[in-house]
């Protein structure tokens, strides 16, 4: 029960943000929500199942392009977003069937090339705009209203994704994924259909990211392959989850806030060396807090077993 109250409290707090009337803040908050979706999604496959997936960028770009292309054929916005989620989901289910039998580094490398592959396909396929990119229809509402609309859209997606995480963490699926993460062979011997469970986790890690890509595309009005298939979109979710707390419910969202705060602060104060400074902070945090920021709070709380 406590997690649901926490989620509702966070939702109400964030939903009242536009009242502050600060568009810079609103833009940052929209990005935080987008990062939270990506981190939360990666947590399904990377945190719960223990499969280090680099496919997040592929799902993001796939969602962005699916939505942009079907909107260019006249589909309404919401339908396009839904289709983007569906496209990412089916693509992940199909891809999972092909690469989820690989373990550890082998899986990581196989998932890494997927975004590169999609990027090349988009570059050469007709109807995608190729290297010139695609422009999306602009909403016919005021600039301030647009900012609010996209903030609420990202927020809703982040909340949906977190709600899904809460349900799955406590379900048979979540339990099975934790078993797989700790010892896949032992899990199989106990009757866990590891292949099906991993594919489910991989698909879950795709569906919300695909929709986030679609919302992002509409938000910025213009997408091109190097932007939406950027490898950083695959790396940042991992960093966020590691910062916040691997395999936890609120860790990924917390990690998103921390990473973006650092990005903004470092970028503003160390313009020329911001990437190096950010890298250093991340290395320090991961070295000294390997279980994430949440572990600091956790150690103070009494331990609670899930199988009670």
């Amino acid at each position: 029960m406590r997690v649901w109250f926490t989620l509702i409290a966070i939702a109400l707090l964030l939903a009242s943000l536009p009242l502050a009337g600060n568009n810079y803040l609103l833009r940052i908050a929209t990005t935080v929500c987008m990062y939270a979706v990506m981190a939360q999604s990666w947590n399904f496959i990377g945190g719960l199942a223990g499969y280090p997936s680099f496919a997040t960028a592929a799902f993001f770009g796939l969602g962005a392009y699916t939505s942009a292309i079907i909107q260019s054929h006249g589909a309404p916005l919401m339908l396009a977003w839904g289709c983007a989620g569906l496209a990412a989901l089916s693509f992940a289910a199909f891809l999972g069937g092909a690469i989820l039998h690989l373990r550890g580094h082998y899986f990581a490398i196989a998932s890494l090339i997927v975004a590169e592959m999609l990027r090349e396909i988009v570059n050469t396929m007709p109807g995608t705009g190729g290297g010139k990119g695609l422009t999306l229809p602009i909403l016919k509402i005021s600039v301030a209203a647009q900012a609010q609309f996209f903030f609420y859209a990202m927020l809703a997606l982040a909340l949906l994704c977190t709600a899904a995480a809460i349900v799955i963490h406590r379900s048979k699926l979540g339990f099975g994924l934790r078993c797989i993460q700790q010892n896949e062979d032992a899990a199989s011997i106990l009757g866990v259909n590891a292949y099906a469970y991993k594919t489910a986790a991989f698909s879950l890690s795709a569906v919300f990211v695909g929709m986030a890509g679609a919302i992002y595309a509409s938000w910025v009005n213009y997408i091109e392959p190097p932007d939406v298939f950027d490898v950083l979109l695959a790396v940042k979710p991992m960093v966020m989850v590691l910062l916040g707390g691997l395999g936890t419910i609120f860790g990924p969202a917390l990690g998103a806030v921390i990473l973006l705060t650092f990005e903004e602060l470092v970028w503003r104060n160390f313009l020329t060396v911001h990437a190096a400074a950010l890298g250093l902070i991340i290395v320090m945090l991961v070295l000294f807090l390997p279980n994430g920021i949440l572990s600091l709070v956790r150690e103070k709380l009494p331990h609670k077993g899930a199988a009670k």
Partner: protein
Amino acid sequence: MTALLTLDGVSRSFGGLNAVDDVSLTVDKGEIVGLIGPNGAGKTTLINLITGVHPATGGRVRFEGRDITRMKPYQIARLGLARTFQIVQPFPKMTVAENVAAGALFCGHAGNVREAGAIAREHLAFTGLADLADRPAASLTLARRKRLELAKSLAMRPRLLMLDEVNAGLNPTEIEEALGIIRRIAEQGVTIIVIEHLMKVVLSISHRVAVLHHGQLIAQGAPRDVISNKSVIGAYLGAKYAATNPRGRH
């Protein structure tokens, strides 16, 4: 008695090595069968072959008349074949109770995680681990981890339980306790295959003993007969010793 498990000329080779070579063996319902043999004889490979971890490269495995040779480990587990690992395989970061709950949950004996937790408590009480239910599995001593392996496989409600050296590395008191638990499991009607190096243990609990050597089944029968079998003594102590030892007979 009716056959529960039938191995029909099963083989498993790794490259050029025949780890299990044309083994035919029947295990009847309610039996405790001891599986012995020198190191590297293929005992664990035989268990891996039955549970689908390393599927047979030749021959057939039948469980209750059903051909399970090509089934996946999780499917075989759900049919009621459980095993423990020689090198214990707990989920280290989970609690002891969660480890056991996994067995009940994924073999379909519990509808949800909470029910599985309740079932886990029963098996923890049976194996004497109830006090440690909320401790992480990684914090257990070897003897208790072996017991945890046992509790996990019991939660699967097995028809056939394969115990791979559950007593290795334990002290005499711990072995006595473990034997007591195994006997009580057998009394509940579970058929058991025991892999064991400690002869005293094998002889005291097995109804029947099968001996593997270089992947082949070289003898099977009543425990006392098997250990005085000449080829068995030869396998353990060398042919020369078997020929001169007056106890050896065919």
